[in-house]
């Protein structure tokens, strides 16, 4: 476990805030799903909060983030507008993408949330492009691309990491290793047993960290982001974690040993970190409760906004296929 005392309390507050936001948003989505208030296909990031919080803490609005269908934690850590996000998940006209993208395609360029893709591994090559743009711009902006352990076995991963290494692109490859790709256990699909370990094949830095500890993630990301900003090239950061709610909500999860999941949930990264902050007197129970309740109110507002927003107008089917002037 990383030494919490090395960090400023404001950093802890920020990390906790993000984690609480992710957890509460996720809780709300799942509650609304199970109560039948909404019908969406939902990929829960619950259990993986510490990764997005620890990485996101280093990012500026002009830094780019690319993520996947299981991206809610990354979206929130990048500061995406909560109302627009909820409305997009619910397919409303007021959604970030006017209801046309949906949860798998959340985009918010003003926050630097550039691409969310549903194709495993496909975000990595695109992330290189944002990094290349920054390099050409002469800016020190970095790009973070998030992906799962299973994604490390697809061709796009390899091509992208190799290109980033060759071009010394300012990109950080963040693997959320939650030990499963759909029903497939990490070791069953991934030869060599380590995603970060693959970094050496490309002559770049790679580090595996406890992805359930926001401070460990924070410190690893700090170094990776520093390296990228300094023009020293890409890093693979592999964050070991666990999906609490299977691949998709509704997943029978038969393929997971039940105690494995129970153990992971017992060591809930959000609860654990919260307890630690209190024990270490970094933040008081009252301060934390205040953060939690402020967030709860924000979520209430966003849910209300999303639910009361109108569906997209049917004419929207035909817009945005091409830039102005060309009919679809």
């Amino acid at each position, binding site marked *: 476990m990383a030494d919490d005392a090395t960090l400023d309390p404001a950093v802890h507050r920020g990390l906790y805030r993000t984690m609480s936001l992710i957890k509460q948003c996720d809780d709300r989505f799942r509650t609304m799903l199970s109560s039948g208030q909404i019908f969406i296909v939902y990929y829960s990031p619950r259990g993986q909060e510490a990764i997005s919080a620890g990485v996101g803490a280093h990012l500026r609005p002009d830094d780019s983030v690319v993520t996947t269908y299981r991206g809610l934690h990354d979206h929130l850590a990048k500061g995406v507008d909560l109302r627009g996000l909820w409305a997009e998940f619910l397919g409303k006209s007021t959604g970030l993408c006017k209801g046309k993208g949906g949860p798998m395609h959340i985009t918010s360029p003003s926050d630097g949330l550039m691409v969310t893709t549903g*194709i495993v591994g496909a975000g990595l090559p695109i992330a290189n492009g944002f990094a290349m743009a920054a390099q050409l711009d002469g800016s020190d902006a970095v790009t973070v691309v998030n992906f799962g352990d299973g994604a490390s076995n697809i061709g796009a991963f390899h091509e992208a990491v190799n290109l980033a290494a060759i071009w010394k692109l300012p990109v950080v490859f963040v693997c959320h290793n939650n030990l499963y790709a759909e029903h*497939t256990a990490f070791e069953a699909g991934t030869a060599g047993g380590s995603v970060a370990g693959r970094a050496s094949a490309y002559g770049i830095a790679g580090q595996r960290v406890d992805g359930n500890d926001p401070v460990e993630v924070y410190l690893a990301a700090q170094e990776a982001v520093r390296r990228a900003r300094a023009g020293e090239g890409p890093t693979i950061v592999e964050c070991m974690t666990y999906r609490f709610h299977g691949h998709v909500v509704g997943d029978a999860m038969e393929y997971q040993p039940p105690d494995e999941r129970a153990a992971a949930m017992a060591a809930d990264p959000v609860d654990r970190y919260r307890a630690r902050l209190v024990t270490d007197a970094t933040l008081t129970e009252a301060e934390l409760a205040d953060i939690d309740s402020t967030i709860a109110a924000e979520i209430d507002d966003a849910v209300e906004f999303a639910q009361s927003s109108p569906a997209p107008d049917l004419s929207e*089917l035909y817009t945005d296929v091409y830039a102005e002037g060309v009919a679809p």
Partner: protein
Amino acid sequence: MTATETTRVMMVREAINDALDRALASDDKVVLLGEDIADPGGGVYGITKGLSTKYGLDRVRPTPISEQAIVGAAIGAAVAGYRPVAEIMIMDFFGVCLDQVANHAAKLRYMSGGQTTVPLTIRCSAGAAMSLGAQHSQMLEAWLVHTPGLKVCIPSNSADAKGMLTTCIFDDDPCVFVEQVMGYFNGSECPEGEHRVPIGEAAIRREGDAITLVSYGRQMNDVLTAADQLAADGIDAEVIDLRWLQPLDTATILASVRKTGRLAILHEAVKRGGVGAEIAAVVAEEAFDSLRAPVVRIAGKNTPVPYARELEAAFLPTVGDLVAAARALVS
């Protein structure tokens, strides 16, 4: 049809599982590979459930997320004499492995001068209506039909799903078998025993002489509903279920159009460059003299598939669209 006598109601997904089960049982050379296809899940839609338990993980092989490796391994094994059934979980993912499908599976026989053949079947789920957005909802059969060397089919009911998949598996060419997710739970009578549907044979689902309606896949239900509505107006539509898009049963289509003089085609895929275009073109070339009205295509709109339910519904072709178009052609 080589159907046995006894049938029972099966859902399409059961029929597919049954076809795979029987193929694995009857021929050691049949092997399955794909992501998450093993038990306990038996695939994300449960289509292969029970098979890895019954036939072992050597023959029902779960894979990493590596579509090029999946199709490539299936090609090699096929050339070596196996009859692999590879699963591409969702048709949109052909994008990451089309080289293996189109440049290798489809062409190895030709490029080797017939020395090797590729008795490979690729199954994939496909289609819209689940609000999964632009990257998980596409019907891309037109890409495959434009690739000589491939055979391509989409069943509309359980009996065909079972019979066509069995035919694909035991066919000596690479076949793509497309499973529309929204059709998985449709139930209908299905032969219980061995069952095959001959390659390239369309089925006439309803006879009529006023207009020919051509479609395939789960949309056949819509087309039959449309035909009922037209019949209520006294318009007697002939309804063709193509089943195979390659080889395409042009003889059946042309014979029907020569009788009715009118043609409307419906499919879920995007209209522009879809399979409907090929059918319209064949008819405009070969049955021109019989045509008494414009050839109409009702299809997915020329857009990516949107997420919001209302927009997704607007993307899809509807019974109403077809009925209106048919009425206009006949009047």
